[in-house]
């Protein structure tokens, strides 16, 4: 067991974890933050995407201890004062989901892509950047639409 302290969604949390604990298991099982999902557990699907120091990563292939002293943001940390993040709102309004399982990862990847590309983000880039996020319901159309709308609001 090793003492782990990090900032999770704006709060400082400390916990004793086994060295082999994956970030996703720390979030779900130890911190009760079950918004982050495990779809494949083989680094392929993107359902587990969270931000570490603002950069999107797959939390199923990162160790919790690799986040010591860093800022971790999950989908639970996006809404502010009860108001959805613009990207969450865009997914809601554009029906960017069916079953919703991939949605937390989609939203975390989408925000990262807007932060890197800014107002220059276009449809082709969104589709290319979504390679690591798999959805088996929607055919992606409304997801792409939602990301472009969310990006507009975020960069306005």
């Amino acid at each position, binding site marked *: 067991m090793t003492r782990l302290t990090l900032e999770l969604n704006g709060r400082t949390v400390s916990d004793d974890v086994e060295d082999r604990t994956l970030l996703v298991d720390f979030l779900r099982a130890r911190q009760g933050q079950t918004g982050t999902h495990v779809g494949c557990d083989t680094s392929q699907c993107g359902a587990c995407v969270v931000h570490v120091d603002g950069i999107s990563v797959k939390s199923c292939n*990162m160790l919790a201890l690799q986040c010591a002293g860093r800022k971790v943001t999950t989908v639970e940390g996006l809404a502010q004062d009860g108001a959805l993040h613009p990207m969450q709102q865009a997914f809601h309004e554009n029906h960017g989901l069916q079953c919703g399982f991939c949605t937390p990862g989609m939203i975390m990847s989408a925000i990262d892509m807007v932060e890197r590309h800014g107002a220059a983000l276009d449809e082709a880039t969104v589709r290319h950047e979504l390679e*690591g996020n798999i959805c088996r319901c929607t055919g992606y159309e409304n997801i792409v639409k939602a990301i472009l709308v969310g990006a507009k609001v975020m960069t306005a």
Partner: protein
Amino acid sequence: MNGFAYLTPGDLAEALALLRQGDEASPLAGGQTLVPTMKQGLAAPETLIDLGGLAELAGLRVTPTHVEVGAMCPHAVVAADPEVRAACPALADLAGMIGDAQVRNRGTIGGSIANNDPAADYPAACLGLNAVIRTDRRDIDADDFFLSMFDTALEPGELIVSVAFPRCREAAYLKFRNPASRFALAGVFLARHEDGVRIAVTGAGTDGVFRWSEAEAALGREFTATALAGLAVPVEDMLGDLHAAADYRAHLVKVLTARALAAISQRA
């Protein structure tokens, strides 16, 4: 995943000392290969030495003669760096084609070439650009580094510090990817240097990345598509699996080489 101890050395000397302490210690870079492998039970190191805190392995620099990429530099940084793009656009393009955005945010050049997956992209850039792999103890030419699939010239406990890519006249990387795994079914790195042409092929060879010397010689004499006509890589040296048969891969190598040539000619 089996238990292990996770250690975070603060510099290169400390990391090397920790690696010397036990055979069962493994360096951890971006974890994009090692962690999934450990989860599957295919690797079970007793100690993981995280290289993330080693300033010696971080960052990249572009000089008038080289692009030198630190072993811990993530693919996303190489892909987005404006100086790399100006000095060697093919290298930036290649980094941007690896995996997906999240894999590129974590995965590193050191981890990629130490692993030497036969379908990985960076080995093709190293071989095509005649790179030098700098380790804690020596410089290794790319031609001597990649031994066969998943095998390199690295000694136990030896760490890659950086990879120095000489700048060339022009280069292009063309990748035919397996859409499921995102790795190359075949990838061709074609580079025109002052003293000749180098063509490195990944994804296709039974021994991992290799140089297609026959085509190098032909394009060295005459840098046109006609020079490639009639050449073929030996089918018996190609991988065949459920994703692509050996003769199909041999065909892809030829088509991708021609397309890389066309990409360079269009740019010129």
